[in-house]
């Protein structure tokens, strides 16, 4: 930042004016360079984000003023008690984790063969095309894709003439309808590229000669996969799963669109916030925060962050 500003004030490239002197100061005191680069981004994230998260945790301990529906500054453990001991809410959390895990597994099952084909079987010239083809749907709009799946799964009306249902109903005569299955498929659809790409990148760094060497030493494909491929892609899978798990866990819009009566923790938070009951909504958000922090820590044990 400061170097750019100094550059604008220096008269020309050949001058040894203030710009040069500044450069020398920076070389002599490396900490100056560190401070001038690290301060702004860290300050922004601490003030805007960590500050907001801290305030959120504090808000969870505030009592709601029933009349004005605004949080007071009176201390209470009531919100946490409600959020963490009510059995319906605990079941919502369990259901959310279940859906997020199911989405992650489904993404993995689809992504693994695709990534392997693209990086190791497809012709080298075709690889970039496949990668772009996997990325492109990410650009198509999250909401629109959700509604596209609504159009796919829609069961139609029992009373209307044929052809009133969704794409699946009217072409293959069957649809899972709106519910958990539709929700898991739609979320897996939304986040699939986030799983394919890290695995592809991980496999791409694995030289094909290693696979050949394993085969030459008598390793059958399954043995090669277990002993050579798996160790290299575990960090990549862990990295991909951070997206599929975390994005599914907190989603509340897809449950509204294709989930039927299925409610996730995100729906609970959004509904409580709009009620409006900010303190209770804040208490509910502690669930996903705790779950994600535990998830991130366990994934970092698998070296996920090196592949992120």
């Amino acid at each position, binding site marked *: 930042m400061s170097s750019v500003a100094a550059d604008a004030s220096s008269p020309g490239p050949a001058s040894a004016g203030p710009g040069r002197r500044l450069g020398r100061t920076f070389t002599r005191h490396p900490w100056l360079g560190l401070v001038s680069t690290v301060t702004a981004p860290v300050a922004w*994230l601490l003030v805007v984000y960590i500050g907001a998260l801290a305030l959120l945790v504090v808000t969870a301990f505030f009592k709601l003023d029933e009349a004005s529906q605004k949080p007071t500054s009176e201390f209470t453990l009531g919100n946490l008690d409600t959020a963490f001991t009510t059995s319906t809410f605990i079941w919502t959390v369990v259901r959310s984790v279940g859906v997020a895990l199911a989405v992650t597994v489904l993404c993995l099952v689809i*992504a693994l063969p695709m990534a392997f*084909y693209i990086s190791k079987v497809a012709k080298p010239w075709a690889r970039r095309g496949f990668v772009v083809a996997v990325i492109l749907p990410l650009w198509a709009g999250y*909401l629109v894709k959700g509604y596209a799946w609504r*159009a796919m799964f829609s069961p139609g009306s029992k009373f209307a003439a044929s052809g009133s249902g969704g794409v699946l109903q009217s072409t293959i005569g069957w649809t899972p309808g709106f519910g958990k299955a539709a929700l898991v498929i739609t979320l897996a659809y939304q986040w699939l590229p986030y799983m394919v790409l890290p695995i592809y*990148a991980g496999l791409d760094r694995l030289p094909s000669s290693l696979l050949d060497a394993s085969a030459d030493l008598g390793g059958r494909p399954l043995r090669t996969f277990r002993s050579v491929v798996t160790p290299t892609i575990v960090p990549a899978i862990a990295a991909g799963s951070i997206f599929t798990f975390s994005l599914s866990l907190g989603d509340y819009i897809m449950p509204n669109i294709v989930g039927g009566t299925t409610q996730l923790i995100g729906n609970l938070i959004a509904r409580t916030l709009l009620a409006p009951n900010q303190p209770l909504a804040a208490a509910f958000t502690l669930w996903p925060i705790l779950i994600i922090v535990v998830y991130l820590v366990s994934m970092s044990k698998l070296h996920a962050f090196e592949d992120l």
Partner: protein
Amino acid sequence: MNLSPIAQWALRIFTWLGLAFLYLPLVVVVILSFNSATSLSWPPRGFTLDWWSKAWEADGPREAFITSIKVAAVATAIALVLGTLAAFALQRYRFFGKTSISFLLILPIALPGIVTAVALQNSFSRRIDLGIFDFQVGFGFHSVVIAHATFCVVIAYNNVVARLRRMSPNLLEASADLGAGGVQTFRLVTFPLIRSALLAGGILAFALSFDEIVVTTFTSGPGVETLPQWILNNLTRPNNVPLVTVVATVVMLLSIPLAWLAQRLSDDARASYL
């Protein structure tokens, strides 16, 4: 690995089925934008261009589109500055707390959108009194920009840091040996080398902001409606659903060259999608 031809074919067919899974819903949306019926029912009743002309004439989607462009442009600019600074700090220096800073960068995108949304809505709505500073952020265009910039920083960071990692430190030494100062080296060596990474990161951050709905819903103020907000509001109005399919088709078409460009400019697949 010596895969049998059958295994190779199985993988090929599976991959094409996977791609079909990715594209089928998009094709459905494009087809429905020409459907003469108003519902999302299948098969389409007949061909019409009505929705395209109605969408072209309507003010709502155009205004929302412009709002989204403005939000994404400002948020991207902030994110690029902050992300680039962070990339230089973490790549060039060793210091205490380095890993917690990379954790800090990833957090706004790793935590579910609804958590970020509730946290920012809560803090923006409060009067913050720190003695010297007494302010309230409030809700409007600026609050959406602040929120979007926060989760876009990591994307700019990822792209720039990937480029800096590949950059040989010898280049900086060579520049210094030839008598260039720090500023001149930045202008003539470092900046030209990271320029395309900045562009790629910028495109990706822009795209993320352009499509965001959850945080936007809870941080935007009255009179601010981004394109995803317009889409969400109109998908519940049966008569406007076909307009949404038209808008969606247009956005998809516009995004193809951008996606292609971002992919070309990025260093590796890892940095190119996050």
